[in-house]
């Protein structure tokens, strides 16, 4: 325990509370809901997108921030290039790709940030403090941990397919789906069994209340960042309302 605490301190300069991250995620879902193409709202949107990039760098994961920045700039450049020079089916496809990246950029970076910097036990501690039902908390925690695993397993399946030379499943849609899905399901089921065995040995099924060694708390930095994000969201909604966009 002592070593893990030291590790946490040297790992980054700012370590936010998981609840702050959740709050930012909720605010971003409002931002993503409203489309903005130009004007002051777009500038606010870009600023809001790059705050988590900054935060993820401050937590010592500079490579994630760098990768996202490259992706974002590439998407922006490709979008303006495609609008001017490429049309037809290829143009539509590229536009769609850029649109998805630009539209969901805040959520993409935020989810990436949350998953890469929040430990599962920290997340559980935060959910406990928020009085979330334990079942829901466990399910979401397992899901969060499982997304990267799924990607990894998918890469193994793809490698195995390439080795046998059946990348495209013979061109049939049904085969393309089943060749990927069935092996993936087989491995996920065995991983699930292992996970539940591991969880039971750690006393997850016990009827008593679980304790947690993670120290989480709302500090000054959490307040500052939460307030900044909140104010920015209000401005964003205000400016896009002026333009007459409808919000739900």
């Amino acid at each position, binding site marked *: 325990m002592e070593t893990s605490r030291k590790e946490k301190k040297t790992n980054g300069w700012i370590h936010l509370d998981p609840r702050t991250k959740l709050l930012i995620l909720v605010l*971003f879902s409002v931002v993503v*809901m409203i489309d903005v193409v130009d004007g002051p709202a777009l500038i606010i949107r870009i600023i809001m997108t790059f705050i988590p990039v900054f935060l993820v760098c401050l937590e010592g994961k500079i490579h994630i921030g760098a990768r996202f920045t490259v992706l974002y700039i590439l998407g922006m450049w490709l979008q303006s290039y495609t609008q001017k020079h490429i049309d037809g089916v290829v143009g539509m496809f590229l536009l769609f790709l850029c649109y998805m990246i630009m539209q969901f950029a805040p959520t993409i970076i935020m989810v990436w940030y949350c998953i890469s910097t929040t430990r599962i036990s920290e997340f559980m501690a935060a959910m406990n403090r928020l009085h979330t039902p334990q079942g829901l908390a466990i399910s979401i925690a397992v899901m969060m941990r499982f997304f990267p695993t799924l990607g990894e397993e998918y890469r193994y399946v793809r490698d195995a397919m390439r080795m046998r030379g059946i990348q495209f499943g013979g061109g049939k849609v049904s085969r393309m789906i089943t060749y990927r899905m069935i092996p993936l399901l087989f491995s996920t089921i065995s991983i699930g069994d292992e996970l539940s065995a591991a969880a039971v040995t750690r006393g997850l099924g016990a009827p008593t209340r679980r304790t947690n060694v993670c120290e989480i708390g709302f500090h000054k930095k959490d307040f500052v960042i939460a307030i900044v994000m909140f104010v920015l969201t209000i401005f964003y909604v205000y400016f896009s309302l002026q333009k007459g966009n*409808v919000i739900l």
Partner: protein
Amino acid sequence: MNEKKKLQARDFITIGIFTAILWIVQLVIMYMGYLSPFIVAGYAVMIPIVTGIPMMLYYARIEKFGMLTITSVIVAILLFIFGMGLAGTPITIGAGIGADLIARSGKYKSKVKTVLSYGFFSLWVSASYLPLVITADAYKESLLEGGYDASFIDTLFRIVTTKTYPIIIICCFVSGIIGAFIGKAVAKKNFEKAGIV
């Protein structure tokens, strides 16, 4: 008896895993959507059919009330985070609870009830159309400004309107039932041999 009916840690882990798979599969289908407006309209058919395979495996592991409900709550949260708003939340959670009740009436073993229950569960897909229907004008405008082809947008909004919304709901249900049958067949072919189901 009461002990057995309560959800255990094992069940929560199963919920987490299968919800993750469900979400990833539907996200992949969503990503193909903007290629053509027909694919967007086809979500109602494609998502229930393709996710039928993992979901049937999931149903084979369900024995207690509440698992489908929790899945639908998580799906609703994810839909909110991915910018679909809160309008679809009641539909999603309602579909989950309804599916759970139907499956429970068959004690989670009856084949007919499982198929019906999955059809009902698939109604959540219709929730992701709601922002498209309700904010049609603003959405249209933003797509146009984003540089989309005008004909693409026209086709999309001719297919998905308030009038066709009930048809979309029925589509979800019917393709859910088809997806359940396909999923059952695939599970029988691949997983029963391996002794997993």
